[in-house]
């Protein structure tokens, strides 16, 4: 059965914003961190993270700068004030959704 991603939309964005709240990171680092912190449950495609990052940057939620670390030049992303506000909105939306799903599952278990 084909996977319906409509419930998942917004999750990669939430994950990116949350990770960048703590520190600036580059694309590869972000993908690895998301996979590690969600035990691979949420692992965005390695390469497809960039359009998402560029989109968030264009929307003003992120800013980027090229930085050389240990001889490797990479584009590092960090959260802006607008991005922090967006993270807060998304977090609260996902918390509500999570609560609703928990309640639903609890109810379903009680019926059984």
């Amino acid at each position: 059965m084909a996977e319906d991603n409509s419930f998942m939309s917004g999750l990669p964005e939430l994950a990116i914003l949350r990770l960048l709240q703590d520190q600036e990171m580059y694309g590869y680092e972000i993908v690895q961190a998301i996979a590690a912190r969600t035990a691979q449950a949420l692992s965005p495609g390695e390469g497809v993270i960039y359009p998402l990052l560029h989109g968030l940057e264009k929307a003003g939620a992120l800013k980027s700068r090229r930085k050389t670390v240990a001889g490797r030049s990479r584009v590092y992303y960090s959260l802006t004030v607008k991005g922090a506000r967006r993270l807060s909105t998304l977090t609260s939306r996902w918390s509500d959704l999570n609560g609703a799903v928990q309640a639903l599952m609890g109810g379903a278990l009680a019926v059984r």
Partner: protein
Amino acid sequence: MLFDNLAEILLKGGVAPRHVRRYVAELREHLEDLTEQQRHAGYNQEDAALRARALLGDDDELAAAMLEQKQFRSFIARAPWAVFIPLPPIIALLASRLIFGSLAQIGGHYGFLANHAPLPPLWYQVLATDVTAILNLFTMPLTAALFVALAARQRLKPIWPLAATLLLLVLFIHSDATFAPSDPEHGIVLGFAPIFEKPAQEVMLDHWPLVTAQYLLTLVPWLWLLTRRQMTHSKL
């Protein structure tokens, strides 16, 4: 080259060249990191590179992610008519006006263009002759080349630069500097005009070899694009 195919898909899909360049650059860096990761996992360089490329995603997948984001489409891809129809004649006219205007300014400053002025000195005659020749031989071909380059950069259909070139040829601009020692009122006459103006048509009939060269040179950029596209198709 790595990601050349992806870049072609994205450009043809209307993604702006600067966004394509940035995406490809970051994918290259990501691929280096992935290859290093696979090397650390114990694979040799060749296997590590292959595994890294597979992990990164295939070209279609990578292209689809970018094409989904409509905000990265260039204006020229979204509305080519707004660029290729009105702008070529405007640019050619402005360039002609700017250069010819500067020539007239110099002539005016020294009083060469005033009524009953004598024939201007040789240096001004040479300058006026050279500037009009440059204008005639370069303004329209360079304007046509600019729009061909824009189309080539975004992989647009050749119909758009052809429209730009045809518009330039229809609204053809021709410049002229005439020195008339026998004219009691003007020692020199400067002028540039589009083809549909009657005096310009008469001048252009007199200058038919130069006019023919102007037409042919203006067509060259589009013919180059067409040849290049045909060569690319035959390679595929």
